[in-house]
Protein backbone atom coordinates (compact mmCIF):
# COMPACT_ATOMS: atom_id res chain seq x y z
CA UNK A 1 0.00 0.00 0.00
CA UNK A 2 1.49 3.33 -1.07
CA UNK A 3 2.61 5.98 1.39
CA UNK A 4 0.09 8.47 0.01
CA UNK A 5 -2.78 6.04 0.54
CA UNK A 6 -1.74 5.42 4.15
CA UNK A 7 -1.59 9.18 4.79
CA UNK A 8 -5.03 9.57 3.24
CA UNK A 9 -6.41 6.73 5.39
CA UNK A 10 -4.98 8.27 8.56
CA UNK A 11 -6.32 11.72 7.62
CA UNK A 12 -9.80 10.32 7.05
CA UNK A 13 -9.55 8.30 10.28
CA UNK A 14 -8.68 11.45 12.25
CA UNK A 15 -11.62 13.22 10.62
CA UNK A 16 -13.86 10.32 11.63
CA UNK A 17 -12.67 10.33 15.24
CA UNK A 18 -13.12 14.10 15.42
CA UNK A 19 -16.64 13.78 14.06
CA UNK A 20 -17.51 11.13 16.67
CA UNK A 21 -16.13 13.37 19.39
CA UNK A 22 -18.28 16.24 18.19
CA UNK A 23 -21.38 14.07 18.27
CA UNK A 24 -21.44 14.11 22.09
CA UNK A 25 -24.88 14.83 23.44
CA UNK A 26 -25.17 18.39 24.72
CA UNK A 27 -25.92 18.59 28.42
CA UNK A 28 -29.50 19.36 29.31
CA UNK A 29 -29.97 22.63 31.14
CA UNK A 30 -30.33 22.48 34.88
CA UNK A 31 -33.87 21.72 35.98
CA UNK A 32 -34.33 25.20 37.48
CA UNK A 33 -33.36 26.84 34.18
CA UNK A 34 -36.39 26.26 31.99
CA UNK A 35 -36.30 26.60 28.25
CA UNK A 36 -38.67 29.22 27.00
CA UNK A 37 -39.99 28.03 23.69
CA UNK A 38 -40.16 30.52 20.89
CA UNK A 39 -41.09 28.37 17.95
CA UNK A 40 -44.49 28.95 16.48
CA UNK A 41 -43.66 27.46 13.11
CA UNK A 42 -45.36 24.24 12.16
CA UNK A 43 -42.22 22.17 12.22
CA UNK A 44 -42.49 19.32 14.65
CA UNK A 45 -38.80 18.49 14.55
CA UNK A 46 -37.33 21.88 15.17
CA UNK A 47 -36.01 23.13 18.48
CA UNK A 48 -35.12 26.75 18.93
CA UNK A 49 -34.13 28.06 22.31
CA UNK A 50 -33.41 31.73 22.46
CA UNK A 51 -34.94 32.54 25.81
CA UNK A 52 -37.66 34.80 24.49
CA UNK A 53 -41.21 34.20 25.66
CA UNK A 54 -43.85 33.28 23.13
CA UNK A 55 -45.86 36.32 22.14
CA UNK A 56 -48.03 35.39 19.18
CA UNK A 57 -48.83 38.20 16.74
CA UNK A 58 -52.54 38.28 17.51
CA UNK A 59 -51.93 38.18 21.23
CA UNK A 60 -49.88 41.30 21.77
CA UNK A 61 -51.20 43.36 24.61
CA UNK A 62 -49.65 45.81 27.04
CA UNK A 63 -48.88 43.95 30.25
CA UNK A 64 -51.28 44.92 32.98
CA UNK A 65 -49.61 45.06 36.38
CA UNK A 66 -52.77 43.62 37.95
CA UNK A 67 -52.90 40.77 35.44
CA UNK A 68 -53.35 37.40 37.13
CA UNK A 69 -50.73 34.82 36.27
CA UNK A 70 -51.99 31.24 36.18
CA UNK A 71 -49.32 28.60 36.12
CA UNK A 72 -49.74 24.95 35.17
CA UNK A 73 -47.15 22.17 35.08
CA UNK A 74 -47.69 18.95 33.23
CA UNK A 75 -45.93 16.13 31.42
CA UNK A 76 -45.95 14.68 27.91
CA UNK A 77 -45.43 10.95 27.99
CA UNK A 78 -46.33 7.60 26.45
CA UNK A 79 -48.24 4.89 28.26
CA UNK A 80 -48.87 1.41 26.93
CA UNK A 81 -52.44 0.12 26.73
CA UNK A 82 -52.77 -3.49 25.54
CA UNK A 83 -49.22 -3.27 24.26
CA UNK A 84 -50.01 -0.24 22.10
CA UNK A 85 -48.28 3.08 22.76
CA UNK A 86 -50.69 5.85 23.77
CA UNK A 87 -49.14 9.31 23.94
CA UNK A 88 -50.74 11.57 26.55
CA UNK A 89 -50.61 14.89 28.38
CA UNK A 90 -50.89 14.50 32.15
CA UNK A 91 -53.17 17.56 32.27
CA UNK A 92 -56.40 17.21 30.30
CA UNK A 93 -58.11 20.48 31.19
CA UNK A 94 -56.92 23.98 31.94
CA UNK A 95 -59.38 26.63 33.11
CA UNK A 96 -58.50 30.34 33.23
CA UNK A 97 -60.31 33.67 33.03
CA UNK A 98 -60.15 36.05 30.12
CA UNK A 99 -57.19 38.36 30.48
CA UNK A 100 -55.16 35.98 32.64
CA UNK A 101 -51.57 35.47 31.78
CA UNK A 102 -51.14 31.71 31.31
CA UNK A 103 -47.83 30.04 32.00
CA UNK A 104 -47.55 26.39 30.96
CA UNK A 105 -44.57 24.34 32.08
CA UNK A 106 -44.36 21.22 29.94
CA UNK A 107 -41.91 18.38 30.47
CA UNK A 108 -41.55 15.55 27.99
CA UNK A 109 -40.73 12.47 30.05
CA UNK A 110 -41.02 9.73 27.40
CA UNK A 111 -41.19 9.72 23.61
CA UNK A 112 -41.09 12.52 21.08
CA UNK A 113 -43.71 15.24 21.54
CA UNK A 114 -44.51 18.88 21.04
CA UNK A 115 -47.26 21.29 22.03
CA UNK A 116 -49.69 23.17 19.80
CA UNK A 117 -52.53 25.56 20.52
CA UNK A 118 -53.80 26.81 17.19
CA UNK A 119 -56.13 29.63 18.27
CA UNK A 120 -53.32 31.39 20.14
CA UNK A 121 -50.70 30.69 17.45
CA UNK A 122 -48.57 28.65 19.82
CA UNK A 123 -46.22 25.86 18.88
CA UNK A 124 -43.40 24.55 21.06
CA UNK A 125 -41.00 21.66 20.64
CA UNK A 126 -40.60 19.72 23.86
CA UNK A 127 -37.23 17.92 23.90
CA UNK A 128 -36.91 14.91 26.17
CA UNK A 129 -36.46 15.62 29.89
CA UNK A 130 -36.41 19.39 29.51
CA UNK A 131 -38.97 21.79 30.91
CA UNK A 132 -40.39 24.06 28.25
CA UNK A 133 -42.27 27.18 29.31
CA UNK A 134 -45.08 28.57 27.16
CA UNK A 135 -46.55 31.96 28.07
CA UNK A 136 -49.52 33.75 26.59
CA UNK A 137 -52.45 35.97 27.53
CA UNK A 138 -55.87 34.33 27.40
CA UNK A 139 -57.53 37.08 25.39
CA UNK A 140 -60.27 34.94 23.79
CA UNK A 141 -63.24 33.36 25.49
CA UNK A 142 -64.15 29.79 24.66
CA UNK A 143 -62.88 26.24 24.65
CA UNK A 144 -59.71 25.51 22.74
CA UNK A 145 -57.93 22.23 22.11
CA UNK A 146 -54.21 21.96 22.77
CA UNK A 147 -52.51 18.90 21.38
CA UNK A 148 -49.31 17.16 20.34
CA UNK A 149 -48.63 17.75 16.66
CA UNK A 150 -46.57 14.57 16.15
CA UNK A 151 -48.21 12.22 13.62
CA UNK A 152 -50.93 10.10 15.22
CA UNK A 153 -50.52 11.55 18.72
CA UNK A 154 -53.64 13.71 18.77
CA UNK A 155 -55.71 10.85 17.34
CA UNK A 156 -54.29 8.57 20.03
CA UNK A 157 -55.53 10.93 22.74
CA UNK A 158 -52.71 13.38 23.35
CA UNK A 159 -54.83 16.50 23.65
CA UNK A 160 -56.56 18.60 26.27
CA UNK A 161 -58.95 21.54 26.58
CA UNK A 162 -58.15 25.11 27.49
CA UNK A 163 -61.28 26.78 28.89
CA UNK A 164 -61.21 30.55 28.97
CA UNK A 165 -64.10 31.96 31.01
CA UNK A 166 -65.53 35.48 30.69
Amino acid sequence: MGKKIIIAVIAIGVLGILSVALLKKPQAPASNTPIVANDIENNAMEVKNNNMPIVPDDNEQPIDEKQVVKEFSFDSFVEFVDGQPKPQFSLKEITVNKGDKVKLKITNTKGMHDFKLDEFGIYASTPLNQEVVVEFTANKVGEFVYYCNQPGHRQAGQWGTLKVLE
Partner: protein
Amino acid sequence: MLLGIKSKKTLFYRHLLVGSLAIALVYLFWLSRPGLSYDVRLWRALGDATFSFLFITLTLGPLAKLWARASRLAPWRRETGIWFALLALSHFIRVIGYALSEPDIALPRLLGLIALSWALVLALTSSDRAVNFLGISSWKWLHHGAYIIFYLAALHASYFLFMRYPDDNWFRYPFLVMALTVPILQASAFVKTVIRQRRQDWY
Protein backbone atom coordinates in the same frame (compact mmCIF):
# COMPACT_ATOMS: atom_id res chain seq x y z
CA MET B 1 -17.14 -13.42 -3.65
CA LEU B 2 -13.61 -14.63 -2.99
CA LEU B 3 -11.27 -11.66 -2.69
CA GLY B 4 -8.20 -13.67 -1.78
CA ILE B 5 -6.83 -10.95 0.49
CA LYS B 6 -4.64 -12.79 2.97
CA SER B 7 -2.96 -9.85 4.67
CA LYS B 8 -4.78 -8.80 7.83
CA LYS B 9 -3.05 -5.45 7.58
CA THR B 10 -4.56 -4.85 4.14
CA LEU B 11 -8.01 -5.86 5.38
CA PHE B 12 -7.60 -3.51 8.31
CA TYR B 13 -6.66 -0.59 6.07
CA ARG B 14 -9.57 -1.29 3.74
CA HIS B 15 -11.99 -1.24 6.67
CA LEU B 16 -10.28 1.83 8.14
CA LEU B 17 -10.80 3.67 4.87
CA VAL B 18 -14.43 2.64 4.36
CA GLY B 19 -15.27 3.04 8.07
CA SER B 20 -13.80 6.54 8.08
CA LEU B 21 -15.88 7.39 5.02
CA ALA B 22 -18.97 6.07 6.81
CA ILE B 23 -18.29 8.20 9.89
CA ALA B 24 -17.51 11.23 7.74
CA LEU B 25 -20.78 10.76 5.88
CA VAL B 26 -22.74 10.57 9.16
CA TYR B 27 -21.00 13.74 10.26
CA LEU B 28 -21.89 15.56 7.04
CA PHE B 29 -25.54 14.54 7.38
CA TRP B 30 -25.37 15.67 11.02
CA LEU B 31 -24.00 19.06 9.98
CA SER B 32 -26.78 19.52 7.44
CA ARG B 33 -29.56 19.75 10.04
CA PRO B 34 -28.50 22.16 12.76
CA GLY B 35 -32.10 23.02 13.68
CA LEU B 36 -33.11 19.57 14.88
CA SER B 37 -32.99 18.23 18.41
CA TYR B 38 -29.99 16.03 19.24
CA ASP B 39 -31.76 12.66 19.03
CA VAL B 40 -33.68 13.35 15.83
CA ARG B 41 -30.59 14.86 14.21
CA LEU B 42 -28.44 11.83 15.04
CA TRP B 43 -30.87 9.12 14.02
CA ARG B 44 -31.66 10.91 10.76
CA ALA B 45 -27.93 11.29 10.04
CA LEU B 46 -27.39 7.59 10.73
CA GLY B 47 -30.42 6.58 8.66
CA ASP B 48 -29.41 8.73 5.69
CA ALA B 49 -25.81 7.48 5.80
CA THR B 50 -27.09 3.89 6.04
CA PHE B 51 -29.20 4.22 2.92
CA SER B 52 -26.36 5.98 1.07
CA PHE B 53 -23.97 3.14 1.91
CA LEU B 54 -26.51 0.56 0.77
CA PHE B 55 -26.85 2.52 -2.45
CA ILE B 56 -23.07 2.57 -2.96
CA THR B 57 -22.83 -1.16 -2.25
CA LEU B 58 -25.56 -2.08 -4.69
CA THR B 59 -24.42 0.16 -7.53
CA LEU B 60 -20.83 -1.14 -7.61
CA GLY B 61 -21.87 -4.51 -9.10
CA PRO B 62 -24.03 -3.22 -11.99
CA LEU B 63 -21.54 -0.40 -12.66
CA ALA B 64 -18.75 -2.94 -13.06
CA LYS B 65 -20.83 -4.79 -15.66
CA LEU B 66 -21.69 -1.62 -17.55
CA TRP B 67 -18.34 0.11 -17.39
CA ALA B 68 -15.13 -1.91 -17.41
CA ARG B 69 -13.14 0.70 -15.48
CA ALA B 70 -15.60 0.52 -12.58
CA SER B 71 -14.80 -3.16 -12.11
CA ARG B 72 -11.84 -2.06 -9.98
CA LEU B 73 -14.33 -0.80 -7.40
CA ALA B 74 -16.41 -3.98 -7.26
CA PRO B 75 -14.20 -5.75 -4.65
CA TRP B 76 -14.95 -2.88 -2.25
CA ARG B 77 -18.57 -4.07 -1.99
CA ARG B 78 -17.59 -6.31 0.91
CA GLU B 79 -16.36 -3.43 3.06
CA THR B 80 -19.13 -1.03 2.06
CA GLY B 81 -21.71 -3.76 2.73
CA ILE B 82 -20.33 -4.51 6.18
CA TRP B 83 -20.26 -0.82 7.05
CA PHE B 84 -23.79 -0.44 5.75
CA ALA B 85 -24.87 -3.15 8.23
CA LEU B 86 -22.96 -1.43 11.06
CA LEU B 87 -24.58 1.92 10.23
CA ALA B 88 -28.00 0.25 10.10
CA LEU B 89 -27.35 -1.31 13.51
CA SER B 90 -26.32 2.10 14.94
CA HIS B 91 -29.47 3.66 13.48
CA PHE B 92 -31.55 0.89 15.08
CA ILE B 93 -29.89 1.32 18.49
CA ARG B 94 -30.48 5.07 18.45
CA VAL B 95 -34.05 4.95 17.22
CA ILE B 96 -35.49 1.90 19.00
CA GLY B 97 -36.68 3.81 22.07
CA TYR B 98 -38.61 6.26 19.91
CA ALA B 99 -39.85 3.55 17.54
CA LEU B 100 -41.40 1.55 20.36
CA SER B 101 -43.19 4.56 21.83
CA GLU B 102 -44.78 5.82 18.60
CA PRO B 103 -48.26 4.80 17.48
CA ASP B 104 -49.04 3.65 13.92
CA ILE B 105 -45.56 2.71 12.76
CA ALA B 106 -45.72 -1.07 13.21
CA LEU B 107 -45.34 -1.88 9.50
CA PRO B 108 -42.43 0.43 8.61
CA ARG B 109 -40.77 -0.63 11.86
CA LEU B 110 -41.13 -4.29 10.85
CA LEU B 111 -39.74 -3.60 7.36
CA GLY B 112 -36.71 -1.92 8.89
CA LEU B 113 -36.21 -4.75 11.35
CA ILE B 114 -36.33 -7.44 8.64
CA ALA B 115 -33.90 -5.43 6.49
CA LEU B 116 -31.53 -5.02 9.45
CA SER B 117 -31.67 -8.72 10.39
CA TRP B 118 -30.90 -9.75 6.83
CA ALA B 119 -28.14 -7.13 6.56
CA LEU B 120 -26.47 -8.52 9.67
CA VAL B 121 -26.59 -12.05 8.24
CA LEU B 122 -24.97 -10.79 5.04
CA ALA B 123 -22.35 -8.84 7.00
CA LEU B 124 -21.49 -11.94 9.04
CA THR B 125 -21.07 -13.99 5.85
CA SER B 126 -18.99 -11.36 4.06
CA SER B 127 -15.67 -13.15 4.15
CA ASP B 128 -13.68 -15.62 2.08
CA ARG B 129 -14.13 -18.13 4.89
CA ALA B 130 -17.94 -17.86 4.61
CA VAL B 131 -17.75 -18.26 0.81
CA ASN B 132 -15.65 -21.41 1.22
CA PHE B 133 -17.95 -22.76 3.92
CA LEU B 134 -21.25 -22.11 2.11
CA GLY B 135 -20.04 -22.79 -1.42
CA ILE B 136 -20.10 -20.15 -4.14
CA SER B 137 -23.61 -20.80 -5.51
CA SER B 138 -25.36 -20.85 -2.11
CA TRP B 139 -23.33 -17.84 -0.95
CA LYS B 140 -24.37 -16.00 -4.11
CA TRP B 141 -28.01 -16.94 -3.56
CA LEU B 142 -27.85 -15.59 -0.02
CA HIS B 143 -26.16 -12.35 -1.02
CA HIS B 144 -28.54 -11.63 -3.88
CA GLY B 145 -30.93 -10.89 -1.01
CA ALA B 146 -29.11 -7.55 -0.72
CA TYR B 147 -31.56 -6.25 -3.33
CA ILE B 148 -34.49 -7.30 -1.15
CA ILE B 149 -32.85 -5.39 1.71
CA PHE B 150 -32.68 -2.39 -0.59
CA TYR B 151 -36.40 -2.49 -1.42
CA LEU B 152 -37.34 -3.06 2.23
CA ALA B 153 -35.10 -0.16 3.29
CA ALA B 154 -36.50 2.04 0.52
CA LEU B 155 -40.08 1.37 1.66
CA HIS B 156 -39.09 1.95 5.29
CA ALA B 157 -37.37 5.26 4.46
CA SER B 158 -40.13 6.37 2.04
CA TYR B 159 -42.71 6.09 4.78
CA PHE B 160 -40.78 8.35 7.13
CA LEU B 161 -39.57 10.79 4.46
CA PHE B 162 -42.82 11.25 2.55
CA MET B 163 -45.69 10.15 4.77
CA ARG B 164 -44.94 10.46 8.47
CA TYR B 165 -42.71 13.52 8.40
CA PRO B 166 -43.43 15.29 5.11
CA ASP B 167 -41.70 18.40 6.40
CA ASP B 168 -38.86 20.03 4.58
CA ASN B 169 -36.28 17.25 4.60
CA TRP B 170 -33.69 17.85 1.89
CA PHE B 171 -32.72 14.14 1.82
CA ARG B 172 -36.02 13.28 0.10
CA TYR B 173 -34.61 14.25 -3.31
CA PRO B 174 -31.27 12.41 -3.18
CA PHE B 175 -33.18 9.48 -1.71
CA LEU B 176 -35.52 9.42 -4.72
CA VAL B 177 -32.59 9.59 -7.12
CA MET B 178 -30.83 6.73 -5.32
CA ALA B 179 -33.99 4.62 -5.03
CA LEU B 180 -34.55 4.92 -8.78
CA THR B 181 -30.90 4.60 -9.83
CA VAL B 182 -30.40 1.14 -8.32
CA PRO B 183 -33.17 -0.65 -10.29
CA ILE B 184 -32.26 1.29 -13.46
CA LEU B 185 -28.59 0.26 -13.18
CA GLN B 186 -29.61 -3.27 -12.33
CA ALA B 187 -31.89 -3.49 -15.38
CA SER B 188 -29.25 -1.90 -17.64
CA ALA B 189 -26.60 -4.37 -16.48
CA PHE B 190 -29.03 -7.22 -17.09
CA VAL B 191 -29.78 -6.00 -20.63
CA LYS B 192 -26.06 -5.63 -21.37
CA THR B 193 -25.38 -9.15 -20.08
CA VAL B 194 -28.17 -10.58 -22.24
CA ILE B 195 -26.89 -8.76 -25.35
CA ARG B 196 -23.33 -9.94 -24.71
CA GLN B 197 -24.49 -13.50 -24.14
CA ARG B 198 -26.56 -13.53 -27.34
CA ARG B 199 -23.59 -12.19 -29.32
CA GLN B 200 -21.40 -14.96 -27.91
CA ASP B 201 -24.05 -17.55 -28.82
CA TRP B 202 -24.29 -16.07 -32.35
CA TYR B 203 -20.58 -16.44 -32.97
